[in-house]
C-alpha cells in the first residue's frame, strides 16, 4: 500500500472531467479514443446486451482485452465479477490500468468483495450511498462510481445514488465530532473514513457517475449534481451515430454548465439508445454487492 495506493487514487484524479466509454472491440476502442474518451472499459458485451442475453456474465477474454490495449494510448479498464479475486489477478497480470469490480457481471461471491489492498493495480467500485462507498474504499478501492442501473439508458437510479451520496456527505459534515462514532456504526463504515468525510466534505477518492447515461444532457445533469466525470456504457454503441454522440458527451462533460453549448451539442445526434424504464426491468443490478 502506501505510495501505490496514492498513485492509484491520483490516476483517477487525472481522469476527472472525462468520459470513460464501454467498448467491445479494438475498432470501437479507436472510435472512443478518437471521440475524446479519457479511458475505455473493455468488455465482451455492453450492459444492454448482457441484459438481453441473460445467463452468467464473466470477465472478458484476456486476448480481447490485449487487442484493445494495443489499439489505444489511453488507460484501459476491465471488469471482474464481485468477489472474484482470481479474475482480478488475471487482469492485473495483463497490465490493466484499472479494474472495475462490477455489479454488471454476475457476482462470484454473495458475501465478500475482493480484498483490493492485496493488488497493485487500482480498483473502481460502484456505490449507491455513502456507507457503501466507504466500505469499498476500506477494502482498497481508489475510485468510486454510482451504480445507476446499467444497460437501461435510464438516468433515474444514477441521479438517486448521486443525490443520496451528497446528502449523506452533507449530513456527516454537519455532525459534531463526538457524534461520528455512532454515525460510523450507522453507515457500517470505518470510523477513520467517516472522519475524513467530516473534515473534507467529500469522499477520499474521485467519484464518477455511471449507469444509464445516454445523452449530453444526462452527462451534464450528473456533472452538475457533483460527479467528477462520467462512465458511458451502452449509451454510445447502442445509439444511431456512436462517434458523434460520444464526441458530444465528451464536450458536455467539459462544459456542463453552459446551456447554449449543450443545446448545440444535443442537435442531430441521431437515435438515442431505446432504453428501458426501471419498472420494466427484471434484473436489478444495483442490488448486487452491498
Amino acid at each position, binding site marked *: 500500500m502506501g*505510495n501505490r495506493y*496514492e*498513485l*492509484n487514487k*491520483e*490516476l483517477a*484524479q*487525472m*481522469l*476527472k*472531467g*472525462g468520459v470513460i466509454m464501454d467498448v467491445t472491440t479494438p475498432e470501437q476502442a479507436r472510435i472512443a*479514443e478518437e471521440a*475524446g*474518451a*479519457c*479511458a475505455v472499459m473493455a468488455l465482451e458485451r455492453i450492459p444492454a446486451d448482457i441484459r438481453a442475453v441473460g445467463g452468467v456474465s464473466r470477465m472478458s477474454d484476456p486476448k480481447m482485452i490485449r487487442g484493445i490495449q494495443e489499439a489505444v*494510448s*489511453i*488507460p484501459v479498464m476491465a471488469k471482474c465479477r464481485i468477489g472474484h479475486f482470481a479474475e482480478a489477478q488475471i487482469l*492485473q497480470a495483463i*497490465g*490493466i*490500468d*484499472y479494474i472495475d469490480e462490477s455489479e454488471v457481471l454476475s457476482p462470484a461471491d454473495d458475501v465478500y468483495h475482493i480484498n483490493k489492498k492485496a493488488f*497493485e*493495480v*487500482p480498483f473502481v467500485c460502484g456505490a449507491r450511498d455513502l456507507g457503501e462507498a466507504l466500505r469499498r474504499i476500506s477494502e482498497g478501492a481508489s475510485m468510486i462510481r454510482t451504480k445507476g442501473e446499467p444497460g437501461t439508458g435510464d438516468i433515474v437510479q444514477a441521479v438517486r445514488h448521486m443525490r443520496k451520496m451528497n446528502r449523506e456527505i452533507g449530513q456527516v459534515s454537519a455532525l459534531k465530532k463526538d457524534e461520528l462514532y455512532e454515525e460510523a456504526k450507522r453507515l457500517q463504515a470505518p470510523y477513520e473514513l467517516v472522519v475524513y468525510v467530516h473534515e473534507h466534505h467529500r469522499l477520499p477518492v474521485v467519484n464518477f457517475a455511471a449507469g444509464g447515461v445516454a445523452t449530453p444532457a444526462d452527462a451534464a445533469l450528473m456533472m452538475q449534481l457533483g460527479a467528477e466525470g462520467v462512465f458511458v456504457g451502452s449509451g454510445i454503441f447502442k445509439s444511431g451515430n456512436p462517434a458523434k454522440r460520444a*464526441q458530444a458527451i*465528451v*464536450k458536455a*462533460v*467539459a*462544459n456542463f454548465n*453552459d446551456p447554449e*453549448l449543450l443545446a448545440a451539442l444535443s442537435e442531430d445526434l441521431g437515435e438515442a439508445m431505446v432504453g428501458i424504464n426501471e419498472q420494466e426491468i427484471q434484473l436489478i443490478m444495483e442490488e448486487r454487492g452491498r
Partner: protein
Amino acid sequence: MGRRIGVLSVQGAFIEHEKRLQRLGAECVELRKHEDAMKSFDGLVLPGGESSVQGKLLRELEMFEPLKRQIEEGMPVMGTCAGLILLAAEINNDTRRHFQTLPRTVRRNAYGRQRESFCATGSFGDFTDIPMKFIRAPYIEEVGEGTEILSVVRGNIVAVRYKKQLAMSFHPELCPDDRIHEYFLKM
C-alpha cells in the same frame, strides 16, 4: 495584486493546480471555451490528464490558436505530464501534435501502464529533494537548442525550461511542496 493565471480546464487534474496557485496568492481563470482563451493572462497552466482529450477539445472549443499565439508571444506556461505533451514539438510514439512550441521530442506513456507508475525524489534546477509523482508519465528524449534541463530521474530527462515554457513529466500539484509553483509564478 496576485498574478492572473489561466488554467486549461477541459479535462484532468486542473483543480489541484488552482488550489495550489490560489494559496500562493494567484488568481485563477478556468479555460473551457473560446471566449475564455481570448482573455489575457500573466501565465498559463496545462494540467495533467489525457493529452489526446485535451488536445482535441482545445481545437474543437476554439482555444488552440489564441493560446498558441500567447505562448509564442512569451506568456509564461507550465505544463505537467499531459501538459508537457501538449507543448512538445515532436512526440515519437503518437501521430498527434499540439502546440509544438517546446523543442523537441517526448515519449508518451514512456514508462508503461499504471503498474509502472512511481514516486521519486530528485533535484529541479537549484532545488533539491523535490518529491515527484510519475503517473503513466511521459519523458523527454531529446532537447533542442536553448533548452535548460532541470531534472533527470532514472537516467531520463523529466523537467525542462525553454524561454518562458516550463514543462515536466511529473505532478508538483499532487505533492506538498510549493517550490515549483513558486518558481513558475516568478517566471
